[in-house]
């Protein structure tokens, strides 16, 4: 069995009286593609936000590579190696595609004010590295030709890919993708699938929230299903698909 990367231990989160997550526990192993699915409002994105430090959980803890993650400290989550994308793309709209990815390098670089002003050899070298790495990543996700366009001028699919490039720039061990295929057509989704598999083959663990059940089942090694903030099932796709609770959750609520 592959070694463990992330353990979520009884995570709970409430908003006012609404229980968005109730004692959700799951384990993600190194090098796998882990799917998190569930009907709308099941708490998938809430889990993401707790994982990446945007929300403070009401209970439970996260262990990443054996170390406890500090709650509500997004930059520390990024530093320890968790990168994410957002369900409704959050790029730096008035920065170019290249600059967006360069910002992703922030957490792995050091230059401060003095370095910026003096531009000593070390800073120059670091800047050059940032630039080169950002260009490589743009190539990797396939938006290199739009490097100098403002992020807001990119097409929807390109924006999704750019967001992945920015997340990869932080050198994550765990890449969390929040509905990356949302709004994509069949061929774009197919490209995305290749991209995600490539990322995994480079040794990065992927956590995937997705509505596109076909994509999840085809891509993921293991899948957890949330319903009303509770984990109802966690297993390989073939087993999950046959789980009666899962079928009920999907068919009971709405005809998907």
């Amino acid at each position, binding site marked *: 069995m592959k070694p463990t990367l992330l353990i979520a231990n009884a995570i709970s989160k409430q*908003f006012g009286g609404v229980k968005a997550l109730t004692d959700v526990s799951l384990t993600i192993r190194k090098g796998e593609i882990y799917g998190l699915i569930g009907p709308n409002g099941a708490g998938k*994105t809430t889990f*993401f*936000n707790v994982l*990446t430090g*945007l929300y403070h959980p009401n209970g439970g803890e996260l262990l990443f590579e054996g170390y406890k993650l500090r709650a509500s400290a997004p930059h520390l989550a990024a530093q320890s190696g968790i990168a994410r994308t*957002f369900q409704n793309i*959050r790029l730096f709209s008035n920065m170019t595609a290249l600059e967006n990815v360069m910002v992703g390098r922030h957490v792995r670089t050091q230059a401060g004010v003095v370095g910026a002003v003096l531009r000593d050899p070390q800073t120059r070298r670091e800047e050059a590295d940032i630039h080169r790495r950002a260009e490589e990543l743009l190539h990797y996700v396939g938006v290199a030709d739009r490097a100098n366009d403002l992020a807001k001028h990119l097409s929807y699919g390109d924006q999704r890919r750019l967001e992945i490039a920015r997340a990869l720039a932080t050198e994550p061990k765990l890449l969390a993708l929040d509905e990356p295929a949302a709004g994509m057509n069949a061929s774009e989704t197919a490209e995305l699938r290749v991209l995600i598999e490539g990322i995994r083959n480079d040794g990065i663990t992927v956590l995937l929230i997705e509505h596109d059940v076909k994509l999840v089942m085809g891509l993921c090694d293991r899948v957890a299903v949330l319903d009303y903030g509770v984990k109802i099932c966690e297993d390989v796709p073939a087993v999950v698909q046959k789980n009666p609770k899962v079928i009920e959750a999907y068919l009971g609520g709405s005809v998907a």
Partner: protein
Amino acid sequence: MDIFVQQIINGLVLGSIYALVALGYTMVYGIMGLINFAHGEVVMIGAMVALFFVKAFSGLPVVILLPLALAAAVCVCMAIGFSIERIAYRPLRHAPKLAPLITAIGISIILQHLAMLIWGRNYHAFPPVIPVSAHEIFGATITSLQVFIVLIAAAMMAGLTLLIQRTRLGRAMRATSQNPAIAQLMGVNINQIISATFVIGSALAAVAGLMVSANYSIAHYYMGFMLGLKAFTAAVLGGIGNLAGAMLGGILLGIIESLGAGYIGDLTGGFLGSHYQDIFAFFVLIGVLIFRPSGLIGERVAERA
């Protein structure tokens, strides 16, 4: 003890005026997400128009004179409020966020100096046409004028609340403030709603202007600036965009300021004198915002991802 009661009364009067002005800021902010920086100047214009109207027709009996002066001030201010929105804000609705702030500052400068051109640089005394009788309560004095100010302010606030909660216009305003695009899809004419917001806010400003100049017996082309600032502070204190917040913030700020002015010397052992009154308001504001970043009863906006 009588100082305490006296300062509470003074604070309540001042606070009622702040609240009326703060409502203007908060309504515009609620609907457009914009600080109408020129709002304080609208109050000043209201004060000036009312004062000069009273001066010009001081022969009339007070019961006719004051309502007429008020009507004149309200009409002028409504016209100004309407024009400000049309000229300075509407064309910039989709512009970068700070552009309307700069036009607002520009309009504010224009109004101030128009007033200076028309009415000069001097302080103007409000003619003593209002018979003022003083009453004693709990060892403090309250004048009939002060009672009137508080009552009228309360009536205006109640009226506005009814308007917002119970009428078609109010419903449209609430819808627009929630989501302009959807409101438009539902058939709300947003342009009309925004104009109405400015006009209503300006009418309240005119009333406040008359109150200030009558209560402190003075008006000046520069008076709108600090008053506007304080009222805006009050709106933020309560939670900007929230009507009840503006009322609460206004009254609290008035009372805090009065108490501060009365007691700051004693509190600091004479180190800080009453000229620190203005600081007091800001310290309270900063204190509140540090613990409640969205104001006292403002909507808590959780960070959403």
